[in-house]
C-alpha cells in the first residue's frame, strides 16, 4: 500500500450549544498522512487550532476501534463517512486525495439535540432501552447456563442483532430521523432468545411508544438505516419488530405492564 500526504479543506459545523444557532466554518489542514484515521486528522486540526489560540472542534469519540458507538460524524452526506459497515473512527484518510473538500456535520435529528459542534445528545436511546430493552432477571436467579439449549441459528441471529452499538447512524441516515432500526435490533436480540420470551407481549409496544415520545420519526421502510449501519444490522429486524408488535396486538392486548 502506497502512503501519501495530502492537504484538505474542511467545512465543519460549529455550534456553541443547544440554544444557539450554528454555522459552517472552513479550515485548512496540511500534510495529512493517508495512514491516519479520520479522527486523527481531526486531532491534527484541533492541535493546530489550539496552537493558534482558537477553540478546537468538539466531537464525540472514545474507543477508536469501532465498538463503543460514541463517534458520530456526518461526512459529505454520509453517516460515518463513505465506507460501508464502518464507524468514523475506523475511516482512514487513504479514502481521500490531495485537495479534497470534506463537509462534516453533526447527526441531525430533533431527538438528538446538538450539545456542541459535532456532539449530540443521544440519551433518548437509553430511555428507549429503559422502556423494555432488557430481560427482567435479578442477579443470582439464574439456572445453569447449559440447562436451556438454544438453536445455534437463532443464537447467531440474536447475536447479529445484539451487535448494534447504539451510535445513532440509523437515525442520522433516515430521512424521517426514525430510530426503528435501533429499536428493532434490541427487540430482535431479545425476542430470538427463550429468555426474552416472557416479556415479548409488552416489549415491542413499550419501546416503540418510547421512541415516538422521544420525537424520533416513524419508519417508512426506506432502508437508508440498513445501508449506513456500521454493524450491518438488517431490515429483517424491523420486520421482526413488526411481527412482535402485531403479535402483541393480536394476543396480548390486555397484557400487564404496557405503558400508556
Amino acid at each position, binding site marked *: 500500500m502506497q502512503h501519501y500526504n495530502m492537504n484538505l479543506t474542511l*467545512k465543519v459545523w460549529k455550534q456553541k450549544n443547544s440554544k444557539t444557532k450554528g454555522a*459552517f466554518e472552513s479550515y485548512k489542514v496540511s500534510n495529512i498522512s493517508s495512514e491516519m484515521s479520520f479522527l486523527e486528522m481531526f486531532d491534527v486540526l484541533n492541535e493546530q487550532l489550539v496552537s493558534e489560540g482558537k477553540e478546537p472542534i468538539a466531537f464525540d469519540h472514545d474507543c477508536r476501534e469501532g465498538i463503543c458507538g460514541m463517534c458520530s460524524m*456526518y461526512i*459529505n*452526506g*454520509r*453517516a460515518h463517512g463513505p465506507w460501508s459497515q464502518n464507524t468514523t473512527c475506523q475511516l482512514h484518510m487513504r479514502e481521500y486525495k490531495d485537495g479534497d473538500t470534506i*463537509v462534516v*456535520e453533526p447527526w*441531525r*435529528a*430533533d*431527538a438528538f439535540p446538538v450539545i456542541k459542534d459535532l456532539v449530540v445528545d443521544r440519551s433518548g436511546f437509553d430511555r428507549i432501552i429503559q422502556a423494555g430493552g432488557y430481560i427482567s432477571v435479578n442477579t443470582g436467579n439464574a439456572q445453569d447456563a447449559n440447562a436451556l439449549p438454544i438453536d445455534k441459528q437463532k443464537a447467531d441471529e440474536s447475536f447479529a442483532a445484539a451487535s448494534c452499538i447504539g451510535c445513532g447512524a440509523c437515525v442520522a*441516515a433516515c*430521512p*424521517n*430521523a*426514525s430510530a*426503528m432500526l435501533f429499536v428493532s435490533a434490541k427487540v430482535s436480540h431479545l425476542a430470538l432468545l427463550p429468555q426474552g420470551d416472557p416479556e415479548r407481549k409488552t416489549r*415491542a*409496544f413499550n419501546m*416503540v*411508544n418510547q*421512541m*415516538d415520545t422521544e*420525537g*424520533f*420519526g*416513524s*419508519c*417508512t*421502510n*426506506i*432502508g*437508508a438505516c440498513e*445501508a*449506513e449501519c456500521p454493524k450491518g444490522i*438488517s*431490515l*429483517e429486524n*424491523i*420486520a*421482526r*419488530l*413488526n*411481527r*412482535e*408488535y*402485531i403479535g*402483541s*396486538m393480536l394476543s*396480548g*392486548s*390486555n*397484557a400487564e405492564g*404496557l405503558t*400508556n
Partner: protein
Amino acid sequence: MSWKNYFSTSIGKKLQMSLTGLFLIVFLLVHCYVNAQIFYNDGGVRFNEAAHFMGTNIVIRITEFGLFGFLILHIVQGLSLAMKNKSRRSNAYAVSAGNKTSAWYSRSMALLGTLILLFLVMHISKFWAPNRFHQLTTGEEMNLFTAMREEFQTLWVVAVYAFGCISLAWHLIHGFYSAFQTLGLGTSKYKGTIKSIGVAFSIIIPLIFLMMPVLFYLHIIA
C-alpha cells in the same frame, strides 16, 4: 390496552398505511381486470356488462364505501406522517446522501401519492362522479365505454393519465414491498420474492391501465 393505542404509535400508523395500501392494491387488481375487458375490442359489450355488475351489485357498492374510507385514511395518514416525519429534522443536512443509501421513490412516497391524488381527482370527476350522478338522477348507468372513447381523444387527458400511471408505478414499487415489510414478512426467506412480485405488479398493472387511454387515442380500440 385498546386497539386505538396499538394503532396510534408509529408502527400502528404504519400498519394503517400497510393495510389500507394492500386493500387499494386489491382494488387496483379488480379495477384493472374489469377495465381490461375493453381489450376485447367488442365495442364495449363485455366491458359494460362488467361495469354494470360493479355498479349495481350490492356487495360491491357497500365495499365502495370502504374503498373511499380506506383511500381517504391512506391519504390523510400518509400526508400527516410525511409532514410529521419531515418535522423530526428541523435543521436539514447541507450535504445529503442522495441515492447512495436509498432509492428516490422510497423517499418520495408522499410526493408520488400527491401526484396520484391529483390524477384521481380528475379521474373521478371524469368517470365515477358523473356516472353515479347519472344513476341517481335517471336510475340508469352511463355508457362508460363511450365515455372513455370520447375522453381519450384529447391528447392532454391521455398525457395526464400517462403521468398518473407512471406515478402509480413508482409509488407501488416501494408501496407493495413496504406493505408486506410492515406486516413483518420482509424476512430473508420472503423478501426477495415479495420484492420481485412487487416490481412485476408495479410495472404490469399501471402498464395495462396506461394502454387504455393510449389505445383509445390511437383508435386501436374503437
